[in-house]
């Protein structure tokens, strides 16, 4: 299973692509998460433009078999969501680290980045 080394990860199987300059990060779910969920049929983001704390729920991913809540990996504002997921939720299955990104967060406390998991730490969590 693929876990790109330039990303940060969480225990909840989310990945983050952090841009230090703008203090923003792109967030999605990992290959492991999409494979566990199976065919994803819709993604709903409830908290666009809201200021949220780390671990607050910001949306849901619903698959044929099950539903999973999405939690903020860091504190900040949900600046943008991936509009393509509205019509093509399967992007989460097909390209979890690229076209299947979910939201863009403007961090309120960039120091939180240091609490995230490295690729090796995450690979251990995902059991590979």
């Amino acid at each position, binding site marked *: 299973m693929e876990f790109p080394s330039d990303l940060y990860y969480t225990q909840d199987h989310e990945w983050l692509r952090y841009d230090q300059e703008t203090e923003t990060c792109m967030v999605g779910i990992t290959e492991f998460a999409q*494979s566990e969920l*199976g*065919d994803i*049929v*819709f993604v*709903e983001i409830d908290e666009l433009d809201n200021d949220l704390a780390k671990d607050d729920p910001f949306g*849901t991913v*619903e698959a*044929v*078999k*099950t*539903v999973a*809540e999405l939690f903020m990996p860091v504190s900040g504002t949900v600046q943008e969501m991936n509009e393509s997921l509205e019509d093509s939720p399967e992007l989460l*299955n097909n390209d979890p680290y690229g076209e299947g990104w979910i939201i863009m967060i403007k961090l309120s406390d960039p120091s939180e980045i240091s609490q995230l998991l490295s690729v090796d730490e995450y690979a251990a969590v995902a059991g590979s």
Partner: protein
Amino acid sequence: MSNQQTPLHSKHVALGAKMMPFAGFDMPVQYTGIIDEHMTVREQVGAFDVSHMGEVLVTGPGAFEYVQRLVTNDAAKLVDGKAMYTVMCLANGGIVDDLLVYRLSENRYMLVINASNINPDFEWMMKQNTTGESLENISDEVGLIAIQGPRAFETVSKISPVPIDDLKYYHFIELEPGSFFGCERAILSHTGYTGEAGLEIYCDASRTVEIWDALFEAGKAFGIKPVGLGARDTLRLESGFCLYGSDITTETNPLEAGLGWLTKLDQGGFIGREVLARIKEAGPERKLVGFVSQERGIPRHGDTILNSDGEEIGQVTSGTQSPILHAGIGLGYVTNQSEYTAPGSELNVQSRIRSFKVQVKRPPFHKEG
């Protein structure tokens, strides 16, 4: 405790299936993905390993009377080569299991039961056997492959030693010993759990791999694919078929589950008849209905069903996203009032994450009308 494996276990692993414990077996949930596998069965042909199902042979001079007392449907309607769907009930009308009854001959029947119930069912059957019929649990000796979809008959025809084109729904052929991949026991049955035409192939456990391979060779031209338990569930739910453990349990009776058509109160006296006769006369207090989401939302087992005033009137027992309708579908029990049970009734489902409108619809959900 380690899980039992079906004869096809190594095939599933080699095919890259995601495996999961189910009813004490290590079973394939999916290979390519639930939606892809689902569409394969609706449009082409899919192969399911359902060897985990249980089979019990009933043999003896009183076999007919025994079966007739055990199940709610009327075994007198069977002839050799004909099968029926039925349930067996407790004395209080609760459902012990749903099953298929095959009449092999006048004094010999095969009962096909759910994997999760093999042991309790067999115990229950033994307890009812007051006339000394022979009851044999042959579950471990029998492999079972379901071939389902519009190209299923063409696929199986290629490997069948006998013609099957005229095999009617709920009819079966018991093949001569040795005539089908050397099986001592083999049955080709026009039955299934998908709502498509198809066959269920009972064979010797030791020959199952060989037959599976031959079926994939035969079905190659028709686009045959393996299908896991995930799509088995979405297919049966689109067709509105009950799942034991979810839609029917010992806490539900066949009349409220919409299985009145297989509850033949006048068949001569089955276990549970008295209670079910009283329920039929009074009308069941709740009823299993089917429904389709009218807005974003997938009903799930355990969700609450509300009426338009927001009052709780029932519970979802099965739910999923229909790959054909691209909408949520479900089954659930609601208070037996026509404003809740009539097709077209508007209800609400309260799920873990949202509340959404559903409309009552008589299954199958994936077909118009």
